[in-house]
């Protein structure tokens, strides 16, 4: 059941990311709600579902932007690994580990995005990007995390995996 509910949720979040988020610019950056939602889903619902849902949502997002399609698929992938490193049990409140996953995931996302941009022949002002985009993005995404984590934690989206995010 989770896939049938999770896919529309992920696609809706991706659409919101592309259509609505550019209208907001706290600290001069665009909130990445798809990244935040992905991190929260992985820590609450587990990795197996995210392995299917995240690439699909990332592809959908890229189809609606000027970026090369496939960029977000690679850039969002580390979130699953980071959630596994964070560990923990599904019965535990894991907001703090989720915040760490969001923070590290945001940096990884922008780093991979920059590498892909360079590989495609464009320039990236690394120093400016770090101070004016990456670090503010970490703060903004972290502030948004509870808004996605708590509803996912409480929402009756079906039985949670008995094991932690890694399946153990």
């Amino acid at each position, binding site marked *: 059941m989770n896939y049938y509910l999770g896919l529309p949720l992920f696609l809706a979040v991706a659409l919101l990311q592309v259509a*609505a*988020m550019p209208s*907001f610019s706290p600290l001069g950056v665009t909130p990445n709600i798809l990244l935040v939602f992905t991190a929260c889903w992985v820590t609450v619902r587990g990795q197996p579902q995210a392995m299917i849902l995240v690439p699909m949502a990332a592809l959908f997002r890229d189809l609606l932007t000027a970026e090369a*399609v496939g*960029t977000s*698929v690679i850039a969002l992938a580390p979130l*699953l690994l980071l959630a596994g490193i964070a560990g923990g049990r599904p019965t535990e409140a894991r907001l703090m580990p989720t915040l760490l996953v969001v923070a590290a995931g945001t940096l990884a996302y922008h780093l991979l995005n920059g590498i892909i941009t360079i590989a495609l022949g464009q320039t990236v002002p690394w120093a400016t990007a770090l101070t004016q985009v990456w670090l503010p993005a970490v703060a903004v995404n972290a502030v948004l995390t509870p808004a996605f984590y708590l509803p996912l934690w409480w929402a009756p989206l079906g039985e949670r995996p008995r094991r932690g995010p*890694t399946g153990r």
Partner: protein
Amino acid sequence: MAMSGRVVVWLVATTVIGAIVILLSQQRTLDPLQNAALSLTSPAQSALRQAADSVSGFFDRQGGEGDLEAQVQGLRRENQRLTAELARLREELATTQALLELQQVVQERPGDKFLLANIIAKDPDDLREAVAIDRGRKDGVAEGMVVVAEGEALVGTVTRALEDVAWITLVTDPNSSINALVQSPDAKGVVSGRLGSRPLLELIPQAAVVNPGDLVVTSGLGGTFPKALVIGRVITVEGEPQDAFKQATVEPAAPVGELETVLVLTSFRPPRLQRP
């Protein structure tokens, strides 16, 4: 297989698949899919963007900026119109007073053709300044075409033309680079977009006189842009006397963050360089 091992395998597979998809995207294989996705979601994106703008504007109005914003918008449009007229008159004066250089492209403004387009999406990537319009190849839009706003203020260029939609890279994009001219008096330079800041007019000869308030227009050199399109105005001038070049910060003439409708200059195509 342990979950951690499965995740590693998944990571590798996802990276490989992602790289393949990126290659396909660069070869334009996925253009029909992108075109369909943008076209189908355009109404929903417009509705969501309007709602988001309303929410964003609500908080702005709490700061008492709502009425002032409307006044500023009206004054900005009038300023753009007058600025464009001034740029054309100065360019005509320079042409009659100076020797004509051999140009690759000769543009005659009355003969130009424009295509009206609506902005339907904005790229959410903070490292990129790009918007999508609801015109594409079937409407005669091609990559390299110049896009302007009211008063012929330069907005950017078409960098990706799909069948029904097109992506425009704005003059504020870090990868944007425009050969420019500072009128009164003439001083050549290059306007480059910057991340999180106003564009920078670089490579201005040290001997050139550039002052805040000077008008910056396209020079037409290189043939990538027509001449005399308004890029913006000089805000500040930086540089030490011992430097070979100085630079200036430019306020874009086109309100790139507030645009809803633009004009695509369909009669101008950058010439292809050919061997003699």
